[in-house]
């Protein structure tokens, strides 16, 4: 299941683990990303907590926890090479995986059609 947030994040659910990243639209807004800071494995995040930081050439941007959960895995590749996020934001550019506190909360997020409508 693939869902989106208004803060331009995407989530892909497998079981109770959601892979989280930022959308292609977000990377277009940000421009070239030069730095990524990921959360710690084991961190417990509430929905809306600051989870990660991306820096483009010009400015820093926060990535928020789209839903409550525990961080179980990080994508170290994008820390080593932030350009991967621009190149493949919804694939190889994933940020971290969350074990969701409540899988049903995914229902409250936007589907692809709704996100496309939001971003015009």
């Amino acid at each position, binding site marked *: 299941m693939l869902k989106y947030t208004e803060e331009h994040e995407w989530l892909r659910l497998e079981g109770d683990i959601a892979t989280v990243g930022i959308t292609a639209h977000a990377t277009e807004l940000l421009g*070239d990303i030069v730095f990524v800071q990921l959360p710690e494995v084991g961190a417990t995040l509430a929905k809306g907590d600051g989870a990660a930081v991306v*820096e483009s050439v010009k400015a820093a941007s926060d990535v928020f926890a789209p839903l409550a959960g525990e961080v179980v895995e990080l994508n170290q590749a994008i820390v080593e090479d932030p350009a991967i996020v621009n190149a493949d934001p919804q694939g190889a550019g994933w940020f971290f995986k969350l074990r969701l506190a409540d899988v049903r909360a995914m229902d409250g997020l936007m589907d692809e059609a709704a996100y496309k409508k939001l971003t015009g």
Partner: protein
Amino acid sequence: MDQPNLKTTPLHALHQELGARMVPFAGYEMPVQYPLGVLKEHLHTRAAAGLFDVSHMGQIVLRAKSENVREASQALGRLVPVDVVDLAPGQLRYAFFTNARGGILDDLMVANRGDHLLLVVNAARKEADEAHLRAQLGNECDVERLDRALIALQGPKAEAALALLAPECVSMRFMDVRTLTLMGAECTVARSGYTGEDGFEISIPADIAREIAEELLANPYLAPIGLGARDSLRLEAGLCLHGSDIDERTTPVEAGLFWAIQKVRRRGGGREGGFPGAEIIFGQLEHGAARHRVGLRPEGRAPVRAGAPLFAAEDASVQIGTVTSGGFGPSLNAPIAMGYLPTAFAVPGATVFAELRGERLPVAVTRLPFIEPKYKRG
């Protein structure tokens, strides 16, 4: 972007057709980047050549009422600690307006055009600079704002690109300024720039600016470059941005710009002083300034931006300095910054700490510039 009352340059429509992302800057709607993106635009400029629209900057003619350029030079010398009188026709020089405290009102380029001086000033300060010139020099000089476009051509392929329109440009050296004819139009061309690369800054009549820009862009080596890359390029070159690295509270000595104050204007020189803040600046030249602008290299990959406080130690509580410009240097593939530190810490090789998102990050003090300039001298 839909902001009312934003001014536009003669190349505005061209930027939009090229797919630029437009942003407000100094009251103008300007391209911050094109589809290539800031990183690639920056690297392209250093590898090949970039074309920048800087028409938002101020171009001001200073002409003595007597028509004698030496009078205009003497007059301007009352406002800048730089030697203008000995600036030969066809030459360009870096200068700055000072205030009574030795602070910098604006930095600018001054060209001797034979019978008048041409000043190029920052966009954000151009109205204030014009008023300053009129108020101080209005009795002996006419001050005229030019309504022309200004483009910069920067990079190793800039000369070859411009030579297709004006072959004589190849005989120009760094800081030369000439009138060249481009596509039938008289343009003022200076071999100068704000990137650390060889290149030219070209003043063009507004009505033919787009045609000339398009002709230049037809060259496969040339790409249009936005303000985003312009900023990362000048930061790597260690060049100041007025309003960030220099302002009314920084003196040229603190800013490391005292090289621009020729000996003849210093204590003991033939045209000693006679500009605002001379005593304070001379005092700093003689006894040293309390703080200095330095290059900064944060450890790791996180950029440290303007405004970040600097500390002597990881757990120190007293701020000793501030970052004035910071970002990412694509040619270095690393974050870089500039800031001010007390003299004792302003030593290449020293380590200070920047506060970033609540943490203290080690930052190395370095020399400026970060890259080797490629000016065409001699």
